C-alpha cells in the first residue's frame, strides 16, 4: 500500500514536470491523453465493471463538448464553469438513456448505443438547433488563458487545469468503485440473478452506471473542446465511440489505471501508424491492436499486475 502511494506521488510529480520538458505541441497532445483517460474511465465503469457494452460513448463526448462550446459561445460562461455543467447534463442524459436500455442485454444493448453514436453527428446538424450548434460549421472557441497573471503559456495552463480535473475524476471513480457500489456493479456483471437475490437493485444500479459513465465522458468532452478550441459534427463520428472501446480493452477492462494506458494507446498509436505507412495507416493500427490483445489478453493494466505478482512470488 505504501509503495502504491509513493508510486502515485511520483506519477503526479512527473505529470507536473512534463509540460516544462516538452514543446507546447507535445503538451497539447498530453492534454488530449488526459482527456481520453477520463472518457475511458467513464466507459470502463459501464463496460468493464458493469458489463454493459456501449458503442455510442462518442455521443456523450459530443454532448459534453457541445455543452461547453455553447455555454462559452452563447452565454459567455467562464471555461472552468462549463466542465461541471457538461458533466451534469451528461449525467442526466446518460441516466435517461440507461432506463430504456435496461431491457437490452449484451449485443442488443451494443446495437442500441451504436444507433445513438451514429445518430449524434446528424442530430448536431439539425437545422432547428443551428442557432446554438452552428450547424455543420460548428463553433470556434477561444483558448483559456492562465488566471491571476500566472506566467504560464495557454497550452501549459490548460494542461494543468485538465490534470487537476483528471485527478478529481480519478479519485471520484476510485472512491465509487472500491466500495459497495463497485462490488454491486461487478456482481451484476458476473451474476445477474444472484446479485438481485443479494438485495441489489439491479435496474437502479445499471441506470446509475450509465449516468455516471456518461458524466465522466461528458466532462472529458468539455475538456476536449477547450483543448481543440473547435467543435463540429464531423468531429464526433461513430469511429470515436469505437476508438474508446478499443482504448478500454487495450488498457485493461475493469481497471482504473487501464484508462491511462488506453488513452496513451489511442492518442499515440495512430500517429505512429501514420508515420510507418501513409498508404495503410489503419492496417498498421490493426496490427498494433492485434499485437497488444494477443500479448496482453487482460490489457496493459492486467499485464503489469501479472508482472508484479510474479516478481513478488519470486
Amino acid at each position: 500500500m505504501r509503495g502504491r502511494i509513493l508510486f502515485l506521488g511520483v506519477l503526479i510529480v512527473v505529470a507536473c514536470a512534463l509540460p516544462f520538458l516538452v514543446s507546447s505541441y507535445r503538451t497539447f497532445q498530453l492534454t488530449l491523453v488526459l482527456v481520453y483517460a477520463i472518457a475511458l474511465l467513464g466507459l470502463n465503469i459501464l463496460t468493464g465493471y458493469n458489463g454493459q457494452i456501449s458503442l455510442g460513448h462518442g455521443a456523450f463526448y459530443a454532448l459534453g463538448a457541445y455543452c461547453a462550446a455553447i455555454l462559452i459561445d452563447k452565454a459567455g460562461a467562464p471555461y472552468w464553469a462549463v466542465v461541471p455543467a457538461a458533466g451534469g447534463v451528461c449525467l442526466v442524459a446518460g441516466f435517461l438513456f440507461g432506463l430504456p436500455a435496461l431491457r437490452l442485454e449484451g449485443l442488443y444493448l451494443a446495437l442500441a448505443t451504436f444507433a445513438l453514436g451514429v445518430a449524434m453527428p446528424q442530430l448536431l446538424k439539425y437545422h432547428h438547433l443551428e442557432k446554438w450548434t452552428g450547424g455543420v460549421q460548428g463553433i470556434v472557441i477561444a483558448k483559456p488563458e492562465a488566471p491571476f497573471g500566472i506566467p504560464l503559456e495557454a497550452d501549459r495552463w490548460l494542461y494543468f487545469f485538465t490534470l487537476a480535473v483528471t485527478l478529481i475524476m480519478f479519485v471520484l471513480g476510485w472512491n465509487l468503485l472500491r466500495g459497495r457500489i463497485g462490488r454491486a456493479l461487478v456482481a451484476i456483471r458476473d451474476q445477474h440473478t444472484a446479485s438481485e437475490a443479494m438485495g441489489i437493485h439491479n435496474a437502479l444500479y445499471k441506470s446509475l452506471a450509465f449516468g455516471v459513465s456518461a458524466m465522466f465522458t461528458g466532462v472529458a468532452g468539455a475538456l476536449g473542446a477547450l483543448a481543440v478550441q473547435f467543435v463540429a459534427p464531423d468531429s464526433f463520428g461513430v469511429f470515436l465511440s469505437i476508438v474508446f472501446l478499443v482504448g478500454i480493452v487495450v488498457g485493461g477492462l475493469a481497471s482504473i489505471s487501464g484508462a491511462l494506458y488506453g488513452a496513451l494507446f489511442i492518442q499515440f498509436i495512430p500517429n505512429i501508424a501514420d508515420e510507418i505507412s501513409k498508404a495503410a495507416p489503419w492496417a498498421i493500427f490493426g496490427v498494433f491492436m492485434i499485437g497488444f490483445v494477443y500479448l496482453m489478453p487482460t490489457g496493459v493494466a492486467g499485464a503489469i499486475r501479472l508482472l508484479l505478482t510474479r516478481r513478488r512470488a519470486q
Partner: protein
Amino acid sequence: MKTKLVCIGAMLAAFAFPAAAQKKYDPGASDTEIKIGNTNPYSGPASAYGTIGKTIDAYFRMVNDQGGINGRKLTFISYDDGYSPPRTVEMARKLVEQDQVLFLFQTLGTPSNTAIHKYMNLRKVPQLHVATGATKWNDPKNFPWTMGWQPNYQTEAQIYARHILKTRPDAKIAVLYQNDDYGKDYLKGLKDGLGDKARSMIVAEASYEVSDPTVDSQIVQLQSSGANVFFNITTPKFAAQAIRKAYDIGWKPVHYLNNVSISVGSVLTPAGLDKSAGVISTAYYKDPTDAHWANDPAMKQWQAFMKKYYPEGSLINAFSVYGYTVAATLHEVLRMCGDNLTRENVMRQAASMKGWRVDTLLPGITITTSQDDFAPIQSVQLQRFNGKQWELFGEVISGN
C-alpha cells in the same frame, strides 16, 4: 593591374553582399530546403480527396528532380486527418510547432480549415490555397494569413446570375438549395448577382436537409411556381434526384447545376444521360475525360507527369488535374519569393499574382490576387451537357 583587380573585386563584393543580405528565412526555409505542410483525408469518409494530396506530392518530386525552386528542394509533409477537425488541429500544430514547416498548403475541407483558421492567423503562419470553396477564406482584413484558391461558391453563383440576366432578362427563377453554409453561400451569390432584380426574379425557394431521403416534393413544389429557370444547388446524390424528377414530371426549365455536382459518373449517369441533356454548369480546369483536350499539349504533359511520378493514380481522375494545377500555382508563388522566404513574403507574393496562368486551366482563365483580394481564381467558363459530355460555350466570365 592590381588596383584594377581590387576594383573589380570590390565591385563584385558590392553586388554579392547585398544579395546575401537579402536572403531571409523563417522556420522551414533554408539555403537548401523549403518545408511545406499539408493535411488530407487519406482515410475516412472523404478519402476520395486523398488523391489531391498524393498528386501534389508527386508534383513536388518532379520539381525536385528538375533542381527544385531557386536551388532549394521542396519537402512536402502531408498527414492524414481522416476529415476529422480535431485531428486537423493536432496535425496542423504538429506541422507548425514540431516539424517547423514554412507554411501550410491545400489543407482540405471546410470544417477542417475552420478548425485551424484562428490558430494559423494567431501564429502568423500562412494557410495557403485551402482546398474548399467557401467564401470566408477571402477575408484579408480579418484573416491575413489565410487564402483560398478555387472559385468560391458565391463567385460561381454570380456568374450564373449574369448569364441569366443576359440571356433571359424576364426569367422566373426557382432555387433548390442544401440547408447549410454551402447552400446559403450559393444562394447569397445568386441574389447579389441579380442585384435589385433578385426580389422579383426569384419566384420560389426550397431547401432540403442532407438527411432527407429525396427532394421529389421540393421539385414538384418548384414546378408549380411556374418558374422557367431552375438553379440547382445540390450535392451529387440530390442533384441526380432533382434532374430525374424534373424530367419525369415534364418540367423543362433552363437548368443551372452547381459545379459541385458536375461529375458525369456519379451524378449525370444515375440521373440518366438523356434526362441531363441541356443542363448548364461551369468549369475552370480541363477535364481529363473531355475528348476536346485529347491532343492538348498541357494535358499531354500532365499525362506524362502522371505516368512518371504518380503511376498508381488514374488518368481520368479530375482531382489529379486539380492537384497538379494548384501545385503549379504554389511553384510560381515560391519562385516569385526568390531568396526572401519569410512567411510574410510568401503571403505577399501569393497576393501579388497578376494574370498568371498554367495551361491545365481552361483557356482564358487566369490567377490574379492583390493585398485586398485573396480569391485567386475568379472566372469560370460555362458548359452545357449535350447528353454525352460537357461542352464549353461562350466566353470566360469573371465574377467581379
